[in-house]
């Protein structure tokens, strides 16, 4: 397996540690004038998102992970798997639903997502930063209270529960930030 030594360390490097893929999120070279150089890194586990702090001495090596990111289209989910397709090759991929616990409910059909593949297998999905979702349920808002910061819960067609302003009604389409789950604006009225 190809390796990288400390002089090749940089942010964004994808490495394999104890059989799991990591992204080098932070890397700092430190050295007292006369003393030993160390490379301090923070590594994000690409399977579970956990952060790992590791310190390396000059000349140490890490195995490079066979990790690549591709843009794919979300097709549908069947309860057990989410299905994606490479729009150029029509090749299809599936990810178990439990791996998409957080972001699965923000996926809309045909959305272009970034999927990370490790050794050719998809391991994680990043949806587009903003998606348009249709409100399927929310309590009616009180008339005349369309301004201000009054918020209420709403359910959207993908199943996500979000917080929306009081003036949003069922069948309205709203834009949502997939990273925070927050409402951004109303796209169209019912």
């Amino acid at each position, binding site marked *: 397996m190809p390796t990288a030594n400390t002089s090749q360390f940089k942010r964004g490097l994808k490495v394999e540690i104890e059989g799991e893929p990591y992204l080098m999120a932070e890397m700092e070279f430190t050295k007292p004038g*006369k*003393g*030993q150089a160390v490379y301090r890194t923070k590594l994000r586990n690409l399977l579970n998102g956990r952060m790992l702090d590791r310190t390396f001495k000059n000349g140490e090596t890490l195995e490079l992970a066979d990790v690549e990111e591709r843009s794919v289209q979300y097709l549908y989910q069947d309860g057990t798997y989410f299905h994606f397709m490479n729009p150029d090759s029509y090749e299809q991929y599936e990810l178990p639903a439990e791996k998409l616990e957080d972001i699965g409910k923000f996926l809309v059909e045909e959305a272009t997502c970034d999927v990370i593949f490790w050794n050719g297998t998809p391991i994680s999905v990043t949806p587009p930063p903003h998606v348009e979702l249709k409100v399927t349920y929310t309590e009616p808002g009180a008339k005349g209270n369309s301004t201000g910061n009054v918020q209420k819960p709403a359910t959207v067609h993908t199943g996500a529960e979000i917080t929306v302003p009081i003036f949003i009604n069922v069948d309205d389409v709203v834009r949502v930030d997939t990273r925070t789950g927050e409402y951004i604006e109303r796209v169209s009225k019912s």
Partner: protein
Amino acid sequence: MPPIEVLRRRAELLASTREFFAARDVLEVDTPLLGEGVVVEEHIDPIPCQVQVEGSNATRYLLTSPEGPMKRLLAAGSGPIYQFAHAFRDGEVGRRHAPEFTMLEWYRPGFDHHQLMDEVEAFVRTLIPEVGDNVFERKTYREVFLESASIDPFATSIEEIRRTCERLAIAVPADFENGSLDDALDLLLVCHIEPQLGAEVPLFVHDYPESQAALAQIHEDAAGRRVAERFELYIQGIELANGYHELLDASEQRRRFEAANQARVENDRPALPLDADLLEALEIGMPACAGVALGFDRLVMLATGATDIRDVRFG
């Protein structure tokens, strides 16, 4: 490339430096950057290069500091000297490190390290008035470790440092237990102690362990600890300068170089030829003196508020 305003400030600092030393009758010198031998240090790598000498290939080194030739000048009777030198250290790339950087190095015959600390303080105060009016603090290496990490560096173990790192959530490198005690102390220093040093008032750290003496004289302190007459200046967590009450004993110097080479070989780094100018200077009889090397790029960083060395110099 750094912004032109930063380069202007850099030029002003260069001019102020020259004024500072002219007013004190310190002579500016300009010695070679290429040498046949180097000041051998366990953890500093010069950049080797091949040059044609009398028709054949020879290895030369881009020097890690101009110490050897400057000491040779002192031995020849130059009196006090200073130099802006480009210095080269292979593999050092980071926010505060560049493989080629600018070093301001100066030597004061007749000074000891405390007198030189006084002058370094006056110099920094003249160039960067923003450091404030407070007298720079001075603490021993031992005091700094005791205050920041409750460790006595003269009576500790790698195991104790490992436990302290664990408590402070500092990840230690693999094989930490088999490294040297100095390497362990250095890890704690850079990861935990350094960022706090000189935070409010610039701080001189002095009286280093004998094993970190490098080119400094050694004496016994009041408690009988063998300490090196070496100092470092820290401002806002940045290691700015390293100085010595210079070692004068040629055979001791040769022994330290050879010990450094031995440590290099044990750690799979090449042994290096010794700096002949430096050894010759000590053999001829260099006057007693103190010397200091100050990272000029880091000084520009402090003056401009830059947080990355690449913002104050090319490359």
